[in-house]
Protein backbone atom coordinates (compact mmCIF):
# COMPACT_ATOMS: atom_id res chain seq x y z
CA UNK A 1 0.00 0.00 0.00
CA UNK A 2 1.06 3.56 -0.70
CA UNK A 3 2.69 4.87 2.50
CA UNK A 4 1.30 8.38 1.91
CA UNK A 5 -2.22 6.98 1.71
CA UNK A 6 -1.60 5.17 4.97
CA UNK A 7 -0.41 8.31 6.74
CA UNK A 8 -3.24 10.33 5.25
CA UNK A 9 -5.84 7.82 6.34
CA UNK A 10 -4.44 7.80 9.87
CA UNK A 11 -4.40 11.59 10.11
CA UNK A 12 -7.95 11.90 8.79
CA UNK A 13 -9.21 9.23 11.17
CA UNK A 14 -7.47 10.96 14.06
CA UNK A 15 -8.85 14.41 13.22
CA UNK A 16 -12.38 13.16 12.67
CA UNK A 17 -12.27 11.43 16.06
CA UNK A 18 -11.25 14.72 17.68
CA UNK A 19 -14.10 16.41 15.83
CA UNK A 20 -16.58 13.83 17.06
CA UNK A 21 -15.40 14.22 20.65
CA UNK A 22 -15.68 18.00 20.40
CA UNK A 23 -19.19 17.74 18.96
CA UNK A 24 -20.14 15.34 21.74
CA UNK A 25 -18.70 17.65 24.41
CA UNK A 26 -20.52 20.65 22.94
CA UNK A 27 -23.80 18.84 23.62
CA UNK A 28 -22.72 17.30 26.92
CA UNK A 29 -21.43 20.43 28.69
CA UNK A 30 -24.52 22.61 28.18
CA UNK A 31 -26.63 19.67 29.39
CA UNK A 32 -24.86 20.01 32.77
CA UNK A 33 -26.11 23.56 33.25
CA UNK A 34 -29.57 23.59 31.72
CA UNK A 35 -32.58 22.26 33.60
CA UNK A 36 -33.78 19.66 34.18
CA UNK A 37 -30.81 18.50 36.28
CA UNK A 38 -31.42 15.09 37.77
CA UNK A 39 -29.99 15.57 41.27
CA UNK A 40 -30.92 12.04 42.34
CA UNK A 41 -28.81 10.65 39.53
CA UNK A 42 -25.95 13.05 40.28
CA UNK A 43 -25.92 11.83 43.89
CA UNK A 44 -26.04 8.21 42.74
CA UNK A 45 -23.11 8.78 40.37
CA UNK A 46 -21.12 10.60 43.08
CA UNK A 47 -21.42 7.45 45.17
CA UNK A 48 -20.31 5.22 42.29
CA UNK A 49 -17.57 7.42 40.87
CA UNK A 50 -16.28 9.00 44.06
CA UNK A 51 -17.05 7.02 47.14
CA UNK A 52 -16.45 3.56 45.75
CA UNK A 53 -13.13 4.68 44.24
CA UNK A 54 -11.80 5.57 47.70
CA UNK A 55 -10.16 2.21 48.53
CA UNK A 56 -8.35 2.01 45.19
CA UNK A 57 -7.19 5.61 45.26
CA UNK A 58 -6.22 5.42 48.94
CA UNK A 59 -4.09 2.30 48.51
CA UNK A 60 -2.42 3.70 45.41
CA UNK A 61 -1.57 6.95 47.19
CA UNK A 62 -0.30 5.15 50.29
CA UNK A 63 2.17 2.93 48.44
CA UNK A 64 3.25 5.71 46.09
CA UNK A 65 4.05 7.99 49.04
CA UNK A 66 5.94 5.19 50.75
CA UNK A 67 7.99 4.26 47.70
CA UNK A 68 8.76 7.92 47.02
CA UNK A 69 10.07 8.40 50.55
CA UNK A 70 12.29 5.36 50.23
CA UNK A 71 13.69 6.41 46.86
CA UNK A 72 14.54 9.91 48.00
CA UNK A 73 16.19 8.61 51.17
CA UNK A 74 18.37 6.21 49.19
CA UNK A 75 19.32 8.99 46.77
CA UNK A 76 20.22 11.63 49.35
CA UNK A 77 23.44 11.83 51.39
CA UNK A 78 22.83 14.52 53.98
CA UNK A 79 19.72 16.31 55.16
CA UNK A 80 17.44 13.42 54.33
CA UNK A 81 15.29 14.29 57.31
CA UNK A 82 14.23 17.60 55.68
CA UNK A 83 14.52 16.47 52.07
CA UNK A 84 12.32 13.37 52.26
CA UNK A 85 9.19 14.96 53.75
CA UNK A 86 9.44 18.04 51.55
CA UNK A 87 9.81 16.14 48.29
CA UNK A 88 7.16 13.61 49.24
CA UNK A 89 4.78 16.47 50.07
CA UNK A 90 5.46 18.36 46.84
CA UNK A 91 5.54 15.26 44.66
CA UNK A 92 2.28 13.91 45.98
CA UNK A 93 0.25 17.12 46.00
CA UNK A 94 1.50 18.54 42.71
CA UNK A 95 1.87 15.48 40.51
CA UNK A 96 1.51 11.98 41.84
CA UNK A 97 -1.70 12.46 43.83
CA UNK A 98 -3.81 13.78 40.97
CA UNK A 99 -2.15 11.72 38.23
CA UNK A 100 -2.20 8.39 40.04
CA UNK A 101 -5.74 8.95 41.27
CA UNK A 102 -6.75 10.06 37.77
CA UNK A 103 -5.31 6.96 36.15
CA UNK A 104 -6.82 4.60 38.70
CA UNK A 105 -10.24 6.21 38.47
CA UNK A 106 -9.95 6.20 34.67
CA UNK A 107 -9.45 2.45 34.79
CA UNK A 108 -12.36 1.96 37.15
CA UNK A 109 -14.87 4.55 36.10
CA UNK A 110 -14.32 5.22 32.39
CA UNK A 111 -14.58 1.49 31.79
CA UNK A 112 -17.72 1.15 33.87
CA UNK A 113 -19.42 4.13 32.23
CA UNK A 114 -18.50 2.97 28.71
CA UNK A 115 -19.72 -0.56 29.39
CA UNK A 116 -22.99 0.63 30.91
CA UNK A 117 -23.83 3.20 28.24
CA UNK A 118 -22.58 0.88 25.50
CA UNK A 119 -24.91 -1.88 26.65
CA UNK A 120 -27.76 0.61 26.87
CA UNK A 121 -26.99 1.66 23.31
CA UNK A 122 -26.93 -1.83 21.79
CA UNK A 123 -30.06 -2.96 23.68
CA UNK A 124 -31.92 0.15 22.42
CA UNK A 125 -32.33 1.55 25.95
CA UNK A 126 -30.93 4.90 24.80
CA UNK A 127 -33.48 4.96 21.96
CA UNK A 128 -36.15 4.10 24.51
CA UNK A 129 -35.15 7.17 26.55
CA UNK A 130 -35.71 9.39 23.52
CA UNK A 131 -39.14 7.89 22.87
CA UNK A 132 -40.00 8.62 26.50
CA UNK A 133 -39.21 12.29 25.83
CA UNK A 134 -36.04 12.21 27.90
CA UNK A 135 -32.83 13.71 26.58
CA UNK A 136 -30.09 11.07 27.03
CA UNK A 137 -27.47 13.80 27.40
CA UNK A 138 -29.30 15.19 30.40
CA UNK A 139 -30.33 11.85 31.86
CA UNK A 140 -27.15 9.82 31.28
CA UNK A 141 -24.20 12.05 30.39
CA UNK A 142 -24.68 15.18 32.51
CA UNK A 143 -25.01 13.40 35.89
CA UNK A 144 -21.80 11.47 35.25
CA UNK A 145 -19.88 14.57 34.16
CA UNK A 146 -21.08 16.63 37.12
CA UNK A 147 -20.38 13.83 39.60
CA UNK A 148 -16.87 13.20 38.27
CA UNK A 149 -15.88 16.87 38.24
CA UNK A 150 -17.12 17.32 41.82
CA UNK A 151 -15.77 14.11 43.34
CA UNK A 152 -12.32 13.94 41.74
CA UNK A 153 -10.90 16.94 43.68
CA UNK A 154 -12.29 15.45 46.90
CA UNK A 155 -10.73 12.10 46.08
CA UNK A 156 -7.40 13.76 45.31
CA UNK A 157 -7.48 15.79 48.53
CA UNK A 158 -7.87 12.51 50.41
CA UNK A 159 -5.18 10.90 48.25
CA UNK A 160 -2.83 13.78 49.11
CA UNK A 161 -3.30 13.17 52.82
CA UNK A 162 -2.92 9.41 52.53
CA UNK A 163 0.10 9.77 50.23
CA UNK A 164 1.91 12.03 52.68
CA UNK A 165 0.97 9.59 55.41
CA UNK A 166 2.51 6.75 53.36
CA UNK A 167 5.77 8.69 53.27
CA UNK A 168 5.50 9.39 56.99
CA UNK A 169 4.94 5.70 57.84
CA UNK A 170 8.06 4.71 55.88
CA UNK A 171 10.01 7.64 57.31
CA UNK A 172 9.15 6.99 60.93
CA UNK A 173 8.98 3.20 61.06
CA UNK A 174 11.58 2.21 58.49
CA UNK A 175 14.02 5.14 58.28
CA UNK A 176 13.87 6.11 61.97
CA UNK A 177 12.90 9.75 61.41
CA UNK A 178 11.36 11.75 64.21
CA UNK A 179 7.60 11.85 63.67
CA UNK A 180 7.03 15.46 64.77
CA UNK A 181 9.94 16.79 62.73
CA UNK A 182 8.75 14.87 59.67
CA UNK A 183 5.29 16.46 59.87
CA UNK A 184 6.74 19.90 60.58
CA UNK A 185 9.01 19.65 57.53
CA UNK A 186 6.12 18.50 55.36
CA UNK A 187 4.04 21.51 56.40
CA UNK A 188 6.94 23.91 55.92
CA UNK A 189 7.65 22.60 52.45
CA UNK A 190 4.11 23.06 51.14
CA UNK A 191 2.34 26.16 49.88
CA UNK A 192 -1.30 26.63 49.06
CA UNK A 193 -0.55 26.64 45.35
CA UNK A 194 0.95 23.16 45.52
CA UNK A 195 -2.27 21.68 46.81
CA UNK A 196 -4.75 23.80 44.85
CA UNK A 197 -3.00 23.19 41.52
CA UNK A 198 -3.38 19.48 42.14
CA UNK A 199 -7.07 19.90 42.91
CA UNK A 200 -7.63 21.89 39.71
CA UNK A 201 -5.93 19.11 37.82
CA UNK A 202 -8.22 16.62 39.51
CA UNK A 203 -11.34 18.45 38.34
CA UNK A 204 -10.07 18.44 34.76
CA UNK A 205 -9.17 14.75 35.00
CA UNK A 206 -12.65 14.02 36.33
CA UNK A 207 -14.12 15.72 33.27
CA UNK A 208 -11.86 13.70 30.96
CA UNK A 209 -12.70 10.42 32.69
CA UNK A 210 -16.47 10.88 32.49
CA UNK A 211 -16.40 12.39 28.99
CA UNK A 212 -14.36 9.52 27.53
CA UNK A 213 -16.53 6.90 29.21
CA UNK A 214 -19.72 8.56 27.98
CA UNK A 215 -18.45 9.31 24.48
CA UNK A 216 -17.25 5.80 23.73
CA UNK A 217 -20.20 4.13 25.41
CA UNK A 218 -22.81 6.37 23.79
CA UNK A 219 -21.40 5.79 20.31
CA UNK A 220 -20.69 2.08 20.61
CA UNK A 221 -22.23 -0.27 18.12
CA UNK A 222 -22.07 -3.86 17.03
CA UNK A 223 -23.14 -5.89 20.04
CA UNK A 224 -20.91 -7.40 22.71
CA UNK A 225 -17.72 -6.90 20.72
CA UNK A 226 -18.54 -3.23 20.15
CA UNK A 227 -19.12 -2.68 23.85
CA UNK A 228 -15.79 -4.36 24.61
CA UNK A 229 -14.00 -2.10 22.16
CA UNK A 230 -15.75 0.96 23.58
CA UNK A 231 -14.61 0.03 27.09
CA UNK A 232 -11.00 -0.40 26.04
CA UNK A 233 -10.98 2.81 24.00
CA UNK A 234 -12.53 4.73 26.88
CA UNK A 235 -9.82 3.68 29.34
CA UNK A 236 -6.91 4.13 26.94
CA UNK A 237 -8.02 7.53 25.64
CA UNK A 238 -8.85 8.76 29.14
CA UNK A 239 -5.41 7.72 30.42
CA UNK A 240 -3.56 9.37 27.54
CA UNK A 241 -5.61 12.55 27.75
CA UNK A 242 -4.99 12.72 31.51
CA UNK A 243 -1.24 12.50 31.04
CA UNK A 244 -1.27 15.07 28.23
CA UNK A 245 -3.54 17.44 30.15
CA UNK A 246 -1.31 17.01 33.19
CA UNK A 247 1.71 18.19 31.24
CA UNK A 248 -0.15 21.17 29.85
CA UNK A 249 -1.50 22.17 33.25
CA UNK A 250 1.86 21.73 34.95
CA UNK A 251 3.44 24.02 32.39
CA UNK A 252 0.69 26.58 32.96
CA UNK A 253 0.81 26.46 36.78
CA UNK A 254 4.57 26.15 37.28
CA UNK A 255 5.88 26.99 33.81
CA UNK A 256 8.52 29.41 32.65
CA UNK A 257 8.30 32.90 34.05
CA UNK A 258 7.66 31.81 37.62
Amino acid at each position, binding site marked *: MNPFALVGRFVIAFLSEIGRIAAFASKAVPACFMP*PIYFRLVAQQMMRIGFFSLPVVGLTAFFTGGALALQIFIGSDVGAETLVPQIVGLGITRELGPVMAGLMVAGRVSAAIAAELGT*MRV*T*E*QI*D*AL*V*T*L*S*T*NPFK*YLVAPRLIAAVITMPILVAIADIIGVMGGWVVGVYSLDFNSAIYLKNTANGLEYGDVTSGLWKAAVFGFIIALMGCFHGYNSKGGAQGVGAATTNAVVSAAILILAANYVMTSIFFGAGR
Partner: protein
Amino acid sequence: MTPKIELKGVFKRFGPKVVLDGVDLSVMPGESLVIIGGSGTGKSVTIKSVLGLVTPDKGSIKVDGQEVTRLTGRAREKVNQKFGMLFQAAALFDSLKVWENVAFALIQGRGLGRAEAKKIALQKLAKVGLGPEVAELSPSELSGGMQKRVGLARAIAAEPEIIFFDEPTTGLDPIMADVINDLIVATVKEMGVTTLSITHDMTSARKIADKIAMLYKGKIIWSGRKEDIDKSGNPYVDQFIHGRAEGPIKMEVVR
Protein backbone atom coordinates in the same frame (compact mmCIF):
# COMPACT_ATOMS: atom_id res chain seq x y z
CA MET B 1 -59.06 14.86 7.77
CA THR B 2 -55.32 15.30 8.36
CA PRO B 3 -53.48 12.02 8.68
CA LYS B 4 -51.99 11.31 12.10
CA ILE B 5 -48.70 10.34 10.48
CA GLU B 6 -47.72 11.18 6.92
CA LEU B 7 -44.47 10.26 5.16
CA LYS B 8 -43.67 11.67 1.74
CA GLY B 9 -40.68 10.66 -0.34
CA VAL B 10 -38.60 9.70 2.68
CA PHE B 11 -35.09 8.79 1.59
CA LYS B 12 -32.24 7.53 3.75
CA ARG B 13 -28.94 5.96 3.01
CA PHE B 14 -26.17 4.64 5.24
CA GLY B 15 -22.90 5.01 3.38
CA PRO B 16 -23.44 3.49 -0.07
CA LYS B 17 -26.48 1.47 1.01
CA VAL B 18 -29.85 3.04 0.20
CA VAL B 19 -32.24 1.89 2.92
CA LEU B 20 -35.31 4.02 2.25
CA ASP B 21 -35.86 4.96 -1.38
CA GLY B 22 -38.82 7.33 -1.27
CA VAL B 23 -41.30 5.93 1.24
CA ASP B 24 -44.87 7.32 1.04
CA LEU B 25 -47.19 6.35 3.82
CA SER B 26 -50.09 7.79 5.74
CA VAL B 27 -51.91 6.64 8.85
CA MET B 28 -55.32 8.13 9.66
CA PRO B 29 -56.38 8.81 13.27
CA GLY B 30 -57.49 5.68 15.08
CA GLU B 31 -56.09 3.47 12.36
CA SER B 32 -53.67 0.58 12.85
CA LEU B 33 -51.17 0.25 10.06
CA VAL B 34 -48.77 -2.66 9.91
CA ILE B 35 -45.71 -2.53 7.70
CA ILE B 36 -44.61 -5.97 6.57
CA GLY B 37 -41.46 -6.92 4.75
CA GLY B 38 -38.37 -9.08 5.00
CA SER B 39 -35.37 -8.30 7.17
CA GLY B 40 -33.21 -5.49 5.85
CA THR B 41 -35.97 -3.85 3.79
CA GLY B 42 -35.99 -0.69 5.90
CA LYS B 43 -38.91 -1.33 8.26
CA SER B 44 -37.01 -0.35 11.41
CA VAL B 45 -35.49 2.72 9.78
CA THR B 46 -38.98 3.87 8.75
CA ILE B 47 -40.24 3.74 12.33
CA LYS B 48 -37.04 5.28 13.68
CA SER B 49 -37.37 8.17 11.24
CA VAL B 50 -40.81 9.01 12.57
CA LEU B 51 -39.53 8.78 16.15
CA GLY B 52 -36.62 11.06 15.36
CA LEU B 53 -33.97 8.45 16.15
CA VAL B 54 -32.83 8.58 12.53
CA THR B 55 -32.87 11.76 10.42
CA PRO B 56 -33.87 11.14 6.80
CA ASP B 57 -31.70 12.59 4.03
CA LYS B 58 -34.71 13.75 2.00
CA GLY B 59 -38.47 13.83 2.27
CA SER B 60 -41.05 14.97 4.75
CA ILE B 61 -42.58 13.41 7.85
CA LYS B 62 -45.63 15.03 9.39
CA VAL B 63 -47.31 14.22 12.67
CA ASP B 64 -50.79 15.78 13.02
CA GLY B 65 -49.90 17.94 10.02
CA GLN B 66 -46.75 19.28 11.72
CA GLU B 67 -43.45 18.84 9.91
CA VAL B 68 -41.18 16.95 12.35
CA THR B 69 -38.30 15.80 10.16
CA ARG B 70 -35.73 18.33 11.37
CA LEU B 71 -37.03 18.99 14.87
CA THR B 72 -34.51 18.81 17.71
CA GLY B 73 -34.31 19.48 21.43
CA ARG B 74 -37.43 20.59 23.28
CA ALA B 75 -39.62 20.71 20.16
CA ARG B 76 -38.73 17.10 19.41
CA GLU B 77 -39.42 16.05 23.01
CA LYS B 78 -42.82 17.69 22.77
CA VAL B 79 -43.73 15.71 19.66
CA ASN B 80 -42.40 12.53 21.24
CA GLN B 81 -44.82 13.00 24.13
CA LYS B 82 -47.52 11.90 21.70
CA PHE B 83 -45.63 8.65 21.15
CA GLY B 84 -45.33 5.34 22.93
CA MET B 85 -42.98 2.70 21.65
CA LEU B 86 -42.68 -1.02 22.27
CA PHE B 87 -39.18 -2.14 21.31
CA GLN B 88 -38.34 -5.50 19.82
CA ALA B 89 -36.35 -6.66 22.84
CA ALA B 90 -38.47 -4.46 25.15
CA ALA B 91 -35.42 -2.22 25.92
CA LEU B 92 -36.36 -1.94 29.58
CA PHE B 93 -33.97 0.07 31.76
CA ASP B 94 -32.17 -2.61 33.72
CA SER B 95 -30.99 -0.17 36.39
CA LEU B 96 -34.61 0.49 37.37
CA LYS B 97 -37.31 -1.70 38.88
CA VAL B 98 -40.25 -2.82 36.75
CA TRP B 99 -42.64 -0.20 38.13
CA GLU B 100 -40.04 2.56 37.72
CA ASN B 101 -39.73 1.55 34.08
CA VAL B 102 -43.48 1.81 33.59
CA ALA B 103 -43.66 5.10 35.47
CA PHE B 104 -40.64 6.58 33.69
CA ALA B 105 -42.49 8.98 31.38
CA LEU B 106 -44.77 10.02 34.23
CA ILE B 107 -41.92 10.86 36.62
CA GLN B 108 -39.40 12.33 34.14
CA GLY B 109 -41.76 13.82 31.59
CA ARG B 110 -44.85 14.84 33.55
CA GLY B 111 -43.08 15.53 36.84
CA LEU B 112 -45.45 13.34 38.84
CA GLY B 113 -44.53 12.36 42.41
CA ARG B 114 -43.14 8.87 42.84
CA ALA B 115 -46.03 7.61 44.99
CA GLU B 116 -48.66 8.78 42.54
CA ALA B 117 -46.69 7.54 39.53
CA LYS B 118 -46.34 4.14 41.17
CA LYS B 119 -50.12 3.90 41.60
CA ILE B 120 -50.63 4.54 37.89
CA ALA B 121 -47.83 2.14 36.99
CA LEU B 122 -49.52 -0.64 38.97
CA GLN B 123 -52.77 0.02 37.11
CA LYS B 124 -50.99 -0.18 33.76
CA LEU B 125 -49.24 -3.37 34.80
CA ALA B 126 -52.61 -4.86 35.76
CA LYS B 127 -53.88 -3.92 32.29
CA VAL B 128 -51.21 -6.11 30.69
CA GLY B 129 -51.95 -8.91 33.14
CA LEU B 130 -49.08 -8.44 35.59
CA GLY B 131 -49.66 -8.36 39.33
CA PRO B 132 -48.15 -5.96 41.88
CA GLU B 133 -45.59 -8.61 42.93
CA VAL B 134 -43.86 -8.13 39.55
CA ALA B 135 -43.56 -4.38 40.07
CA GLU B 136 -40.70 -4.64 42.55
CA LEU B 137 -38.62 -7.03 40.43
CA SER B 138 -35.79 -5.98 38.18
CA PRO B 139 -36.35 -6.45 34.40
CA SER B 140 -33.59 -9.07 34.16
CA GLU B 141 -35.63 -11.36 36.44
CA LEU B 142 -38.49 -11.52 33.92
CA SER B 143 -39.08 -13.90 31.01
CA GLY B 144 -39.17 -12.58 27.44
CA GLY B 145 -42.96 -12.52 27.33
CA MET B 146 -43.20 -10.68 30.62
CA GLN B 147 -40.60 -8.14 29.47
CA LYS B 148 -42.71 -7.48 26.37
CA ARG B 149 -45.75 -6.93 28.55
CA VAL B 150 -43.84 -4.51 30.79
CA GLY B 151 -42.64 -2.78 27.62
CA LEU B 152 -46.26 -2.45 26.52
CA ALA B 153 -47.26 -1.08 29.92
CA ARG B 154 -44.43 1.46 29.68
CA ALA B 155 -45.51 2.46 26.17
CA ILE B 156 -49.09 3.17 27.25
CA ALA B 157 -48.33 4.65 30.67
CA ALA B 158 -48.30 8.29 29.59
CA GLU B 159 -51.48 7.92 27.52
CA PRO B 160 -49.88 8.40 24.09
CA GLU B 161 -51.85 9.22 20.94
CA ILE B 162 -49.69 7.06 18.72
CA ILE B 163 -48.08 3.73 19.64
CA PHE B 164 -45.30 2.09 17.67
CA PHE B 165 -44.71 -1.64 17.81
CA ASP B 166 -41.38 -3.01 16.61
CA GLU B 167 -41.76 -6.74 15.92
CA PRO B 168 -44.08 -7.26 18.89
CA THR B 169 -44.12 -11.06 18.63
CA THR B 170 -40.53 -11.84 17.60
CA GLY B 171 -38.79 -14.23 19.95
CA LEU B 172 -41.96 -15.41 21.70
CA ASP B 173 -43.58 -18.82 21.63
CA PRO B 174 -46.78 -19.00 19.52
CA ILE B 175 -49.09 -18.91 22.52
CA MET B 176 -47.35 -15.97 24.17
CA ALA B 177 -47.27 -14.26 20.76
CA ASP B 178 -51.04 -14.59 20.57
CA VAL B 179 -51.41 -13.28 24.11
CA ILE B 180 -49.38 -10.20 23.15
CA ASN B 181 -51.42 -9.74 19.96
CA ASP B 182 -54.65 -9.89 21.94
CA LEU B 183 -53.27 -7.43 24.47
CA ILE B 184 -52.28 -5.03 21.71
CA VAL B 185 -55.70 -5.23 20.07
CA ALA B 186 -57.50 -4.77 23.39
CA THR B 187 -55.35 -1.83 24.49
CA VAL B 188 -55.56 -0.09 21.14
CA LYS B 189 -59.34 -0.47 21.04
CA GLU B 190 -59.75 0.74 24.60
CA MET B 191 -57.47 3.76 24.20
CA GLY B 192 -58.59 4.59 20.67
CA VAL B 193 -55.00 5.27 19.63
CA THR B 194 -53.32 5.26 16.25
CA THR B 195 -50.67 2.60 15.78
CA LEU B 196 -47.82 1.98 13.40
CA SER B 197 -46.22 -1.45 13.64
CA ILE B 198 -43.60 -3.41 11.79
CA THR B 199 -43.48 -7.16 11.68
CA HIS B 200 -42.68 -10.11 9.47
CA ASP B 201 -45.09 -12.33 11.38
CA MET B 202 -48.20 -12.55 9.17
CA THR B 203 -50.36 -14.05 11.92
CA SER B 204 -49.60 -11.03 14.05
CA ALA B 205 -50.10 -8.61 11.15
CA ARG B 206 -53.55 -10.04 10.32
CA LYS B 207 -54.56 -9.78 13.95
CA ILE B 208 -53.48 -6.25 14.84
CA ALA B 209 -53.79 -4.42 11.50
CA ASP B 210 -56.57 -2.39 9.90
CA LYS B 211 -54.33 -1.69 6.96
CA ILE B 212 -51.17 -3.39 5.76
CA ALA B 213 -48.35 -1.92 3.71
CA MET B 214 -45.50 -3.93 2.26
CA LEU B 215 -42.02 -2.51 2.14
CA TYR B 216 -39.55 -3.92 -0.36
CA LYS B 217 -36.15 -2.46 -1.23
CA GLY B 218 -36.92 0.83 0.51
CA LYS B 219 -40.28 1.43 -1.20
CA ILE B 220 -43.89 0.71 -0.36
CA ILE B 221 -44.91 -1.71 -3.10
CA TRP B 222 -48.45 -2.42 -1.92
CA SER B 223 -50.83 -1.08 0.66
CA GLY B 224 -54.47 -1.69 1.41
CA ARG B 225 -56.98 -3.09 3.88
CA LYS B 226 -55.96 -6.33 5.50
CA GLU B 227 -58.98 -8.11 4.01
CA ASP B 228 -57.64 -7.36 0.56
CA ILE B 229 -54.14 -8.70 1.06
CA ASP B 230 -55.01 -12.20 -0.14
CA LYS B 231 -56.25 -10.82 -3.46
CA SER B 232 -53.61 -8.15 -3.93
CA GLY B 233 -52.58 -9.52 -7.30
CA ASN B 234 -49.04 -8.50 -6.40
CA PRO B 235 -46.59 -11.40 -6.81
CA TYR B 236 -44.20 -9.91 -4.19
CA VAL B 237 -46.96 -9.68 -1.60
CA ASP B 238 -48.21 -13.17 -2.46
CA GLN B 239 -44.77 -14.64 -2.05
CA PHE B 240 -44.28 -12.91 1.31
CA ILE B 241 -47.64 -13.74 2.91
CA HIS B 242 -47.36 -17.36 1.91
CA GLY B 243 -43.74 -17.57 2.93
CA ARG B 244 -42.44 -19.11 -0.30
CA ALA B 245 -38.75 -19.31 -1.11
CA GLU B 246 -39.52 -19.22 -4.85
CA GLY B 247 -40.84 -16.04 -6.40
CA PRO B 248 -39.86 -12.55 -7.53
CA ILE B 249 -38.12 -11.81 -4.20
CA LYS B 250 -34.72 -13.42 -4.41
CA MET B 251 -32.93 -14.09 -1.18
CA GLU B 252 -29.22 -13.59 -1.38
CA VAL B 253 -28.26 -17.05 -0.26
CA VAL B 254 -25.03 -18.63 -1.35
CA ARG B 255 -25.43 -22.33 -1.82
